[in-house]
């Protein structure tokens, strides 16, 4: 066994760190879009809008039922062949769209379960003071569902950050892509991938810390 090239690793850290903003940026953009889409689908699933409900169920079933990598290839390499308007799509955009659709399907189910978990009396109280269904949902039910769904949603965000590494297969030079290039130049694969692994780990640990802060904030309504 040879010794680790520590100097190489330390020199690599700032290089890979330079790609952290792109990784976080893709994950954040996809998270915001996925949350919005997931909320809409979750509310729809609770309200059961005819026709739309079947479509949403099919959507969720497809995006939960197929691998993310397959979905990314389908959008980036496949879809432009059928829809020429998409032929100019760049890897970053394609990755954000793919992550959004994939994770929104999972998140919609979590949010739906959280909505259904809110006590029935909360609906009744909102209706009784004369709120419309939409007002009741937005102002009373969703905020309470958010508290329940938050830990799961943050877990999906963590998963999403790690999944941005798949964008490298679409030719995007993000953390993983940059590491791959560096390693190919130096042939120090173990050192290079160890560095990127530790950096992903550090990002996720930071998020776990923020998750605790968020949960404390959301739980203030039930703290005694």
């Amino acid at each position, binding site marked *: 066994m040879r010794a680790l090239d520590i100097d190489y690793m330390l020199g690599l850290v700032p290089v890979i760190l330079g790609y952290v903003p792109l990784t976080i940026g893709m994950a954040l953009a996809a998270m915001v879009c996925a949350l919005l889409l997931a909320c809409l689908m979750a509310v729809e699933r609770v309200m059961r809008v005819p026709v739309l409900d079947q479509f949403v169920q099919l959507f969720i079933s497809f995006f939960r039922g197929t691998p993310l990598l397959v979905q990314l290839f389908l959008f980036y390499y496949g879809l432009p062949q059928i829809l020429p308007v998409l032929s100019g799509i760049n890897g970053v955009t394609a990755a954000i769209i793919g992550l959004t659709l994939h994770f929104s399907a999972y998140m919609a189910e979590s949010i739906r379960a959280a909505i259904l978990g809110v006590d029935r009396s909360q609906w009744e109280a909102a209706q009784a003071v*004369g709120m419309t269904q939409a*007002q009741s949902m937005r102002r009373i039910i969703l905020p309470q569902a958010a508290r329940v769904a938050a830990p799961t949603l943050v877990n999906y965000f963590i998963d999403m950050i790690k999944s941005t590494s798949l964008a490298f297969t679409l030719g995007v030079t993000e953390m993983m892509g940059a590491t791959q290039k560096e390693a190919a130049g130096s042939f120090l694969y173990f050192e290079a991938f160890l560095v990127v692994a530790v950096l992903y780990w550090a990002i996720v640990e930071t998020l776990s810390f923020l998750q605790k802060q968020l949960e404390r904030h959301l739980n203030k309504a039930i703290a005694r």
Partner: protein
Amino acid sequence: MISIRGLTKRYGTNTVLDGIDLDIAAGERVAIIGPSGTGKSTLLRCLNYLDRPDSGVIRIGDLTVDATTATSAQILALRRRTAFVFQNYALFANKTARDNITEALITVQRKPRAEAEARADAILGEIGLSDKTASYPAALSGGQQQRIGIGRAMALDAALMLLDEPTSALDPEWVGEVLDLMRRVAERRQTMLIVTHEMQFAREIADRVIFMDGGRIVEQGTPAQIFDAPQDMRTANFLRRVR
């Protein structure tokens, strides 16, 4: 003036409300008593369509809602003329005491925030909870929560306040303070329809007492008539049991 005609509610083959006819004058305080499972709560819940009646007509002022043709706009209008106090309080768990009161004033009645908050603060003073303005329901006792539940209903200035066994879920130590508050609401001649098991309270505050059994109004009259000289055997038997 509130009028109810032929209000009927069935669950499967079980008729819970069997053609209720009832008029309530503005400012009248009506108490409903009767055995469990006789449709008292269902009557209240049908009056604001938390449970949709199968048939019957409800009139509040110039608003008429017929169960066979009721639109969601009519149901919304009906709810905006009534206020409801729940047995289990049902405060908005994600809102502070004050926001529980301002919520409907702002989102439903479209009052400016400052005005709604001034109203909420005045009500919190009246119900003796000025020091709990920023507290969430989970941090309050049952009695405090129910006082806010009543405060939330007071703030709506509803044509009819519906109170569904407001003290039944309370620990005995909190019943007194909630009854005191309801007494004060009643003294202002707020039109109210209250389902209660507190017979002494009903006798004190009600202009009229209704005895229900089997989904029907069996007997009604002044508290003295019902409590001291019930005409129907079922009323007499019930009162003997609860005393």
